[in-house]
């Protein structure tokens, strides 16, 4: 029975971790689905979120979840600015230009953080960091549970935005067919700005919820999260928000199970191998029929 307990424990941890991966992946897939831009800077926006929590904690003594109130609007605004001044200029250029532009943004963010905060790993100590509580014999970490709840709330809000509001309809229309959306009077440039802002906001939020759990380093952590986000979205199918959630949970569970039952030193590799296999043999993702849906 002990084996089953440990299995349940691992699955629970994997699902909760996967929720945060899903949050990161949704931002990437939303941007790709609407703008057809592969955002290499996505992981660096996650790291930016982590450091914003560190900063608010150091200056004002705020809890990471309190700092979300400021970090999320700032993230949205930063995304809009980046889209306006950089990405909107390359939207009609060959797809590589946007990829290189976001790669440049990624290097600038990572190294700017390095210049400001220095290279040593940073984190925020919270009083509930090590507290757990058990449901049916499974111990759940408080931090992961809070992150999971935040993820669910955010996904519900996003679902409502996309499916129940006029802006959401415009976003889906732009993803479906940009020219067609222009013809029925949608300002697709404005939609692009909003979508990139949303993508950055989601990344920042994921970073803030992760900071009590992980240490942030300026340049390496960004690349790790960018890769994870790619793995999550490709698992589900690029451009498909619902599938990104499934992809995130799948990656979380696979990583935790692979690390505890197989070779833990290859934890990062499981996702990458799955990523390659799916890219090669099922580029539309595990769940998607078309890559155009949002």
């Amino acid at each position: 029975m002990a084996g089953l307990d440990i299995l349940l424990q691992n699955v629970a941890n994997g699902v909760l971790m996967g929720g945060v991966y899903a949050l990161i992946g949704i931002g990437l897939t939303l941007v790709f689905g609407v703008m057809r831009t592969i955002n290499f800077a996505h992981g660096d926006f996650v790291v930016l979120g982590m450091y914003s929590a560190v900063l608010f904690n150091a200056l004002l003594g705020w809890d990471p979840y309190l700092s979300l109130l400021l970090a999320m609007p700032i993230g949205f605004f930063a995304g809009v600015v980046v889209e306006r001044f950089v990405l909107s200029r390359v939207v009609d250029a060959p797809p590589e230009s946007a990829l290189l532009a976001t790669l440049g943004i990624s290097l600038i963010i990572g190294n700017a953080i390095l210049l400001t905060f220095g290279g040593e790993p940073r984190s925020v100590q919270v009083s509930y960091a090590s507290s757990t509580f058990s449901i049916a014999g499974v111990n759940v970490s408080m931090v992961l549970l809070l992150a999971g709840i935040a993820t669910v709330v955010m996904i519900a809000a996003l679902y409502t935005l996309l499916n129940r509001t006029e802006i959401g309809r415009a976003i889906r229309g732009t993803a479906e067919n940009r020219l067609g959306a222009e013809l029925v009077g949608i300002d697709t440039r404005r939609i692009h700005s909003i979508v990139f802002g949303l993508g950055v906001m989601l990344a920042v939020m994921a970073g803030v919820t992760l900071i009590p759990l992980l240490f942030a380093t300026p340049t390496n952590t960004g690349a790790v999260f960018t890769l994870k986000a790619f793995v999550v979205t490709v698992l589900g199918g690029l451009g498909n928000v619902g599938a990104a959630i499934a992809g995130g949970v799948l990656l979380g569970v696979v990583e935790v199970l692979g690390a505890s039952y197989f070779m833990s030193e290859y934890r990062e590799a499981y996702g990458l191998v799955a990523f390659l296999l799916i890219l090669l043999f099922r580029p539309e993702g595990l769940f998607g029929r078309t890559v155009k849906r949002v």
Partner: protein
Amino acid sequence: MIKHLIGLGVLLAVGIAYPAIFPNNLTIAISVLLFAGWATSWDLLGGWNGQVSLGHASFVGLGAYFVAIGQSQFGLAPWWTMAMAAVFAAILGYFWGWLTFSLRGPYFSLSTIAVAEILRLIAINEEWLTGGATGVFLATLPEPFGIDLFSRTAQFYMALAFAAVVVATVIVISRAQFGYQLRAVREDEDSAMAAGIDPTATKLKAFMLSAALTSIGGGIYGVVLAFIEPHVIFALLLSVQIALTAIIGGRGTIWGPSVGALVLIGAGEMFRTTFAEANMLIYGILILIVVLFLPRGIVGELARRHIRRLYAKRAQS
């Protein structure tokens, strides 16, 4: 082609005289030459053939590990291990390309990151093969004709020879049938196929040649470092650095990647005190400038202006 080869000869002559004139600035010159060679090798695939790889650090690491392990465990001289590394890199490039060339554009770039990261994890974790995360130390080297390979002067000449051979290869290819096939596939794979070119075979050849050349430079880098750590030499950042050097200098031009190496390493040296370890910031800023304002890179933009001026002159007369 003759003009470019003469230019290369002149630069080579300057390079041979360089250690006598600036004996104290050899380390940075070695960096410039190695990056010029790597970026030019990358450009065979990334510029001339249009397949942007973000995994070339794998081949640098491969070359460095072959030299270090060959010397420290089997007593093999670096020139033999470099030749072996080149062959092995070409084979690796063949399978890598065979696996991923069905993907086009940005998807190919993503897949190269994934493959390179898997190779990095293998280099860190398989201790029996690579010495693991602690790395390999290069303690002794043979002394051919009494030359001390640990001296910076000898290493400078090795790097110079490497860069010159790579640039000469590209000059010859640019006018050869293979060079036109590369460009045809870059512009439009389907039309190239209609013209009787096998796009996959062309891309595979470009990848294999690019990989082999890069790994030779990696072998020299191994000798220069004398201490090889997997997270330094297999790093995604090194792959990005190689690709950006070529793109900022000018993709698909003969001299662009070398100019890129000179500009970026030079700028990195100038701002070393200001930015310290954050000097990849320069790469980020420059790539944004290039993407937004100079989509052909530095040399590509200069060449475009030159051609425009020629046409303007011809129209006047």
